[in-house]
């Protein structure tokens, strides 16, 4: 089974800065990591490979330093990595990103399964996985929490939905997006780390891929960011202490009053 896992390199969630003019992220000086939710996709792919054979290819689209994300994925056990990178891809929205990644997957050739993370922690859209499926016209199963069976032709999965789990039987090739429940990501191994340092990472760019130039990057993106604002997070709410003998009673009194005013009780 040949599996491709598109992974995104994102800034560590705790410290993110924005360019107020362009509405894009300032990446300088911020540590970059593999999107934490993509680690679940990598783990799911590695387990399938271990059980059923095949290869796992990690693919990332981003500026050249994103190559590190691919190397980190190789250190976890992926056989191969691909960097999809070109200045022309800069500023892509989810439409243009999923188009470019879909074309990169076509270039890889025979692929049975594409596993993406649920969403990236920076863009936070959860649109790229479904977008890739739509571009490639492949069946799509999102929010997968469990893989319950695999044959040469099909895969059965449990999809986390509002009512519980929807049980689906999906033919290969297909796209699935996974949630945290699927598996706990492993740590890189020593051998993997060693291999990741020397492994050749092919570069896919606008020159060696088949692409419609009008569908790339900022220009090719249907959506435009017009404004970025930083919301006030602190609500300046009331804080009461429950200390002392009557503290708990008093604090709960105040809380009941508050809930009453808000018509919540």
């Amino acid at each position, binding site marked *: 089974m040949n599996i491709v896992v598109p992974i995104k390199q994102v800034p560590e969630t705790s410290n993110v800065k924005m360019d107020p003019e362009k509405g894009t992220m300032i990446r300088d000086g911020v540590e970059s990591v593999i999107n934490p939710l993509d680690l679940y996709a990598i783990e799911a792919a590695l387990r399938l490979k271990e059980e059923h054979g095949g290869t796992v290819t990690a693919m990332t689209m981003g500026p050249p330093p994103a190559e590190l994300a691919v190397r980190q994925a190789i250190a976890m056990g992926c056989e191969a990595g691909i960097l999809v990178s070109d200045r022309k891809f800069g500023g892509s929205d989810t439409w243009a990103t999923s188009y470019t990644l879909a074309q990169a997957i076509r270039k890889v050739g025979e692929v049975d399964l594409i596993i993406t993370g649920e969403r990236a922690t920076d863009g936070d859209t959860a*649109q790229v996985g479904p977008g890739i499926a739509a571009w490639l016209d492949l*069946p*799509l*199963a999102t929010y997968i929490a469990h893989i319950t069976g695999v044959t040469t032709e099909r895969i059965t999965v449990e999809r986390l939905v509002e009512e519980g789990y929807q049980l689906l039987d999906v033919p290969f090739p297909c796209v699935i997006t996974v949630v945290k429940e699927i598996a706990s990501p492993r740590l890189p191994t020593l051998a993997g780390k060693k291999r990741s340092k020397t492994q050749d990472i092919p570069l896919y760019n606008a020159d060696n891929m088949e692409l419609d130039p009008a569908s790339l990057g900022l220009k090719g993106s*249907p959506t*435009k960011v017009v404004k970025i604002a930083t919301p006030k997070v602190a609500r300046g709410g009331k*804080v009461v202490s429950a200390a002392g003998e009557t503290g708990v009673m008093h604090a709960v*009194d105040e809380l009941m009053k508050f809930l009453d005013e808000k018509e919540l009780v």
Partner: protein
Amino acid sequence: MSFVWTIAEQYEGQLRGVSFELLSRGRALADELGTKLASVVIGDGVDEKALEELIHRGADEVYSIQDPRLKDFVCETYSRILTDLVETYQPAIILAAATSSGRTLMPYVAIKVNTGLTADCTELAIEEGTGNLLQTRPAIGGNIMATIKTPDHRPQMSTVRPKSSRPLPRDTSRTGKIVEVPVEDRYIDDRVHVLGYRRDEEEFANIEEADFVVAGGKGMKKADNFVMLKKMADHFGGEVGASRDAVDRGWIAYPHQIGLSGKTISPRLYIGAGVSGSIQHLAGIKTSETIVAINSDPDAPILKVADFGIVGDLFQVVPELQRRLDEKNTEAT
């Protein structure tokens, strides 16, 4: 003038509440643009009365596409239908719910009809002069609010989180048109088979659509202690939520997890007990209407985002709060 559309959702023939929430958003936009509002229902067994309810709650027209083969959400099939409808009627705007199906269908269709999509919008407005839809959404774990537009492509598509708007009051004097759209065989994509559903009552919670969520974190100390949160959640008719720490310790199942690697919720009331308020957890609760926190540490970050915080031992505060709620209940009856 092209219409504004909403995508109504159904499960087993019943319209979901979020279908009506979308109509209140859509109504405001349609009025501002001076156009009509239509709601699209894809499914099976949604009766005339339910379709009329969409009109009473704000729709001018309803497109109903129903067939036993459409009973379950299957992305490829629903996408073929919606793509066909969009190409036929060319709406200006489509709003759908940011639910498991909305968040699957909309990005698939956006590619098929060659347009942009903005996820999880919290605010929707019309830009003066151009009439473009201004879509505002939180990004980067709620650290920023980005306003996005789709100037040159139509339709403009957005998903909106459940519970982030209230339905309009029912107005039975409203009238409108119900259009039955015939189902064509070419719509049915049978590559994916739905085998059924699994729902484990113990494990499962639909926290995204709950009005009240009582959440516990590592401060709850053990699984058994979640019983008192369940009791309080039941009192409110809500659900129990949890931090990742509580889930990873096996105290409660993953569908209850709130936050970056769990669910984002916007309930009327969130109560967090023994939850510190890490940025990953806060990412999931920032859009709650009211946040109440109970924590023994006066420096816990959750107290900064709370509308009401109690610094104290949750094992004293929660039972006392429960006692007072029960008392209030007996008074009322």
